[in-house]
């Protein structure tokens, strides 16, 4: 169990950031479902429910999702079920149960760069941008590569277009963490392949995506692209699977995802 000495519930993001950066051991309290399993000592916990960051809205060009939006809200959103082949709801729908998804927040999952995240690979293939209070609006891919710096993720942006995406995962049991997860998107025959739970945080398979973007699409090229993805990414061991197993399964899941995304055309 974590230790919490003080608590603040700021009315503005500015105030939240000020408290966050006052002391090294001050921290944002996200959903807390993962935090509770550790033994972290937090001096001042910053609870963001007064910032009204639980929303999903759209304008003419973008979908905007607040950081305090729960996975259950992502799953049920008519907007997210309509766009991108409903891939965001599909990515989170198998995470434990409805009661758990009512607690887990988008901001905590993305900001923490969790390797096991089922959402991050999908957001990568949708060219998601994140907005950080201090760091500003940057591509998610850039944020994932950046060194850790104290900041507050306030929202994410998805460009509205006719992009189609699919999500695949491999788990030991239905409600376990993914051993590996894959998302593939396609817009105007341009593909993005992302692989997560390697077990490190999700990454775009750039060479495999490029290979498909410059060639004919057939059974052989799909096979080749899935092999390139498995070769270019690095995999590791943990209690759920070995690096070797993950690499082998990467070929399978990427090929299945590519086939499925082609069928969606």
């Amino acid at each position: 169990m974590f230790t919490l000495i003080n608590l603040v519930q700021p009315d503005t993001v500015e105030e939240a950031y000020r408290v966050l950066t006052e002391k090294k051991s001050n921290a944002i309290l996200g959903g807390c479902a993962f935090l509770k399993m550790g033994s972290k000592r937090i001096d001042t916990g910053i609870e963001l429910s007064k910032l009204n960051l639980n929303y999903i809205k759209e304008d003419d060009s973008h979908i905007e999702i607040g950081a305090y939006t729960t996975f259950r809200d992502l799953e049920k959103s008519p907007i997210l079920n309509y766009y991108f082949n409903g891939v965001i709801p599909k990515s989170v729908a198998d995470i434990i149960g409805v009661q758990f998804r009512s607690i887990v927040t988008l901001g905590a999952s993305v900001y923490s760069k969790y390797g096991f995240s089922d959402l991050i690979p999908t957001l990568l293939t949708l060219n998601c941008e994140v907005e950080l209070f201090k760091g500003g609006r940057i591509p998610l891919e850039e944020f994932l590569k950046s060194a850790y710096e104290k900041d507050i993720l306030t929202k994410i942006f998805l460009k509205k277009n006719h992009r189609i995406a699919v999500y695949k995962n491999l788990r030991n049991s239905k409600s376990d963490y993914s051993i590996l997860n894959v998302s593939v998107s396609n817009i105007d025959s341009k593909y993005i392949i992302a692989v997560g739970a390697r077990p490190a945080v999700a990454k775009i398979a750039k060479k495999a995506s490029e290979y498909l973007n410059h060639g004919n699409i057939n059974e052989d090229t799909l096979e080749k692209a899935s092999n390139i993805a498995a070769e270019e990414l690095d995999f590791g061991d943990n209690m759920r699977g070995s690096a070797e197993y993950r690499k082998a399964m990467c070929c399978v899941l990427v090929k299945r995802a590519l086939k499925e995304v082609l069928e969606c055309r």
Partner: protein
Amino acid sequence: MQIVIIINNKKTLLDVELNEFLADTLRKHGMLSIRKACNTSCCGLCTVWVDGKPTLSCSLLSIKAVGKNITTIEGVQSEAENFAKILVAEGAEQCGFCSPGFIMTVLAMKNELKNPTEKDIIHYLTGNLCRCTGYMGQLRAVKKYLGVN
């Protein structure tokens, strides 16, 4: 710290620790139907409704429940009893330890899903584990309760 939570339609003043989770707060307040089992947010035994939504009380900080409407099985006794009778009739209850959380999820599903299929029911109940019954009896009972063929 003192907080006010609405528990089963009653405004309730509670003393809580800052790192205390709602399951512990409710149990301290006498709501012993709230069960804690897995401590890893995956068994569903501690399910309550927060503003009508099924939620793991073992994973929600009590301070995040301030001003929210919390419903436990004590607050929906009549409806819970109706479903519990079907559970018993279908042989879907053995030790009963998981029943309060399971029943709260089923009642939430009834409120939320219109004309669910068997697949919808199974998906909705994935987060409720039962180590006794093997789930088939539970599924029969839920389908009977919801009038699903």
